[in-house]
């Protein structure tokens, strides 16, 4: 089991958001998380990452068999967790290149060294050239550029368990396919016996035409109320909305 969440209850600033979430994800699986706004999808992500504001009041999170519930965020990242944000903040003076240097394992953002050619080649593949990497991260990026920059950082980082927060929102049709392909690459979906796994939040579901999801869950009011085959659940949501689930 790569990730195992049991009875997870989480409060944010005194307000209970997650009310007993159970979730198991095996190597090679890609899970989709659906649910209305405010259901707690992003809170689940942030809690798995261990941000201080998200207080676990009950339950635990096991990753590769290790209890990570009390670990610091950077320790979890070192163990192989990764995330792409839906709306990452723009940070003035911090270049995309600097972030790539951190995640590229060098962990030294002050270093004068240039990026590995490999990372530059990854950027080219995502239509982000070397000049683009010199830009302040997310500052003035278009919607598509934000998503591709997020994926580029993860491609450089090579995590084992990846959370994608709406990787397809604000992206034009043409780029959804590109992004989906890279998500597939990240998750090793083209490789046999991949040891990687992913959890993906999506509203549109269009991306499921391109990404091979194995499981889907519906999260409503802090609880997973239904789990099943992604296409079936997605169709169900499309026709009846979340209210009928």
């Amino acid at each position, binding site marked *: 089991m790569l990730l195992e969440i049991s009875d997870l209850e989480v409060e944010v600033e005194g307000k209970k958001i997650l009310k007993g979430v159970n979730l198991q994800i095996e190597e090679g699986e890609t899970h989709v998380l659906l649910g209305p706004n405010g259901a707690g999808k992003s809170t689940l992500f942030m809690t798995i990452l261990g941000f*201080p504001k998200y207080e676990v009041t009950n339950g635990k999170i096991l990753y590769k068999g290790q209890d990570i519930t009390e670990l610091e965020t*950077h320790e979890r990242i070192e163990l192989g967790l990764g*995330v792409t944000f839906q709306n990452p903040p723009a940070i003035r003076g*911090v270049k995309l290149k600097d972030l790539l240097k*951190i995640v590229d394992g060098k962990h030294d953002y002050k270093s004068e060294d240039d990026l590995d050619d490999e990372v530059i080649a990854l950027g080219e593949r995502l239509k982000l050239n070397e000049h683009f990497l010199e830009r302040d991260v997310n500052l003035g990026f278009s919607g598509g550029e934000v998503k591709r920059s997020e994926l580029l950082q993860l491609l450089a980082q090579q995590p084992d368990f990846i959370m994608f927060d709406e990787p397809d929102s604000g992206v034009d049709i043409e780029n959804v396919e590109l992004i989906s392909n890279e998500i597939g690459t990240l998750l090793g979906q083209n490789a046999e016996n991949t040891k990687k796994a992913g959890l993906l939040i999506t509203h549109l579901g269009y991306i499921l035409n391109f990404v091979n999801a194995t499981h889907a869950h519906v999260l409503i009011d802090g609880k997973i109320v239904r789990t099943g085959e992604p296409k079936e659940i997605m169709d169900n949501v499309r026709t009846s909305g979340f209210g009928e689930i």
Partner: protein
Amino acid sequence: MVSIKDRAEKALNKKAAIGEDIDLDEYETMDVDAYEHVDSLEDLDKSDKDTLTSVGMDTTEEERSASFLQMDQSELLAKVMYPGIEVMSTPQALEKYDWLSDYMWNAMAVDADKYTATTELDGKSGYFIRSLPGTKMELPIQACMYIGDDSVRQTAHNIIIAEENSEINIITGCSTANHVKHAAHIGVSEFYLKKGSKVTFTMVHNWDKEVDVRPRTAVIMDDDSTYISNYILTSPVQNIQAYPTAYANGDNTKVFFQSILAGKEDSQIDQGSRTILSGNNSQSEMITRAISDDESTIITRGDLLGKSQDVRGHLECMGLILSDDSKIYSVPELRGECTNMELSHEAAVGKIAEDEIQYLMARGLTEDEAASMIVRGFLDIDIKGLPDELAKETKKLMELSMEGM
């Protein structure tokens, strides 16, 4: 006619328009012959050399076109390695050039406040830098004001003249020796930029917790001239107040002021920049990045005055507050006095955004590393107008100053 000396004497107790009033009698003036001359910065003690290096001085002098060093009130070194520029002490220059007296207290009023007045009356100090017509010198001239003894009141009256179509880069570092805790520094700098000239002036301050600092700077600019000022203060200081002013009198002049201020411990920093745009088609850009930590207070001021046609000016101040006990006040002023001009300002003061910290933590940094990266990024302004090599060096200097932040 009232003499300069009389005017200075009358203003000896005149408080400055802004900033805390400093009792200058708390400090002692030093003799101009207190120290022996040196032939090279390499002749100084290791600890002095290290301090000089930290404020941008190249003690080997290999990458410099000229060097000047004033310790307390004594000139220790004035050396020129390349033709086309002149560097010497102001008293020496006054002996050499009769005409120089016309430049003394011309950009700056001697009776502006007690600090200018004291500088005149303490006398016999400061540097004179002049680039001859047409000189283009990429290698910077370095000038250092160094306080070597406790309780010293250091004054300096500097005159910088860039003759027609000349270009020079000046790096000036001001610091106290390691063992000096308590001192005062008053530096009056009058710049004269002739037609078509360009001066970049990069100043690094590295004082101590009990040092009072009152720089007084004015720049007079003729047609087609460019003045670029970079100011870096990242170490603790007791109290500093400065409001350098550029008089863009000529047509087509360009002014850039860029300041990086980091308030630490209980530093009181009041730093402004002002441009008076009087020449047609002139422009000014003034940018400040300030971070306050511990119990420090930073006031950043900016003042743009548009007095003639087709002038443009932009003022930007961004402040980041790192501790609850520190303060940042931003005071931008725009004054328009004619129709066809454009003045703007942008100011924001806040704390480090939590989502930015989390974003970097999600990439593997600890919370402290994330905050440090954000602060460095925040202070990392593009340095305009410097030759490539010097821009790189200035960037390194900024990074050096920011170490440990």
